[in-house]
């Protein structure tokens, strides 16, 4: 249990660090959201689950927190992405396609 907990914590923090790196490297807000959301969601879930393995008395709260992060994180990043698009933040110059702009132009 303790070994598994340590492994989960390590993998989780590795993904958190990769998410931070993605935030720096990606060219526009939408790609940063992609890197930020995915990596931190799995990273945080893994760290929390690993911590619960080390201290089993907090398992119930840890499960609740994992469920909350899994539900809330995509919602908040979708909201940020939607607001950014409506707020006029352009896609990165290397983007290849934008169906949404086409849609609004024809309306």
């Amino acid at each position, binding site marked *: 249990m303790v070994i598994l907990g*340590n*492994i989960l*914590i*390590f993998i*989780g*923090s*590795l993904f*958190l*660090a*990769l*998410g*931070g*790196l993605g*935030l*720096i490297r990606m060219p526009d*807000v939408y790609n*940063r*959201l992609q890197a*930020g959301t995915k990596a*931190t*969601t799995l*990273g*945080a879930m893994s*760290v*929390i689950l*690993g*911590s*619960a393995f*080390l*201290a089993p*008395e*907090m398992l119930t*709260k*840890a499960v*609740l*927190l994992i469920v*909350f*992060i899994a539900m*809330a*994180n995509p*919602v*908040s*990043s979708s*909201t*940020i992405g*939607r*607001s*950014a698009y*409506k*707020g006029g*933040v352009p896609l990165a110059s290397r983007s290849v396609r934008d169906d949404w702009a086409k849609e609004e132009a024809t309306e």
Partner: protein
Amino acid sequence: MTPIIIVSLVLIGLSALLTVIRLLAGPTPFDRLMASDTLTVIATAFLVLFSVISGGTDLYIDVAIVYAVIGFIGVVTIARFLKGGK
């Protein structure tokens, strides 16, 4: 504290540092908002881990739950406000 935990703490610190750089660099308000959202999740994970290594008090995990909830509500509210309109 095992060496693995120490390495993990360093990695979490690194990720928080990179996120803060993005928070300061911007360039749009949405980048900053996204960085602070990411920072909330990182802080939540850190609080839970800290709750374990500080000797198993579940005080910090309560703090983490409340922090995650408030952070989520804050980010959604600010995002809707920044968009302007509705």
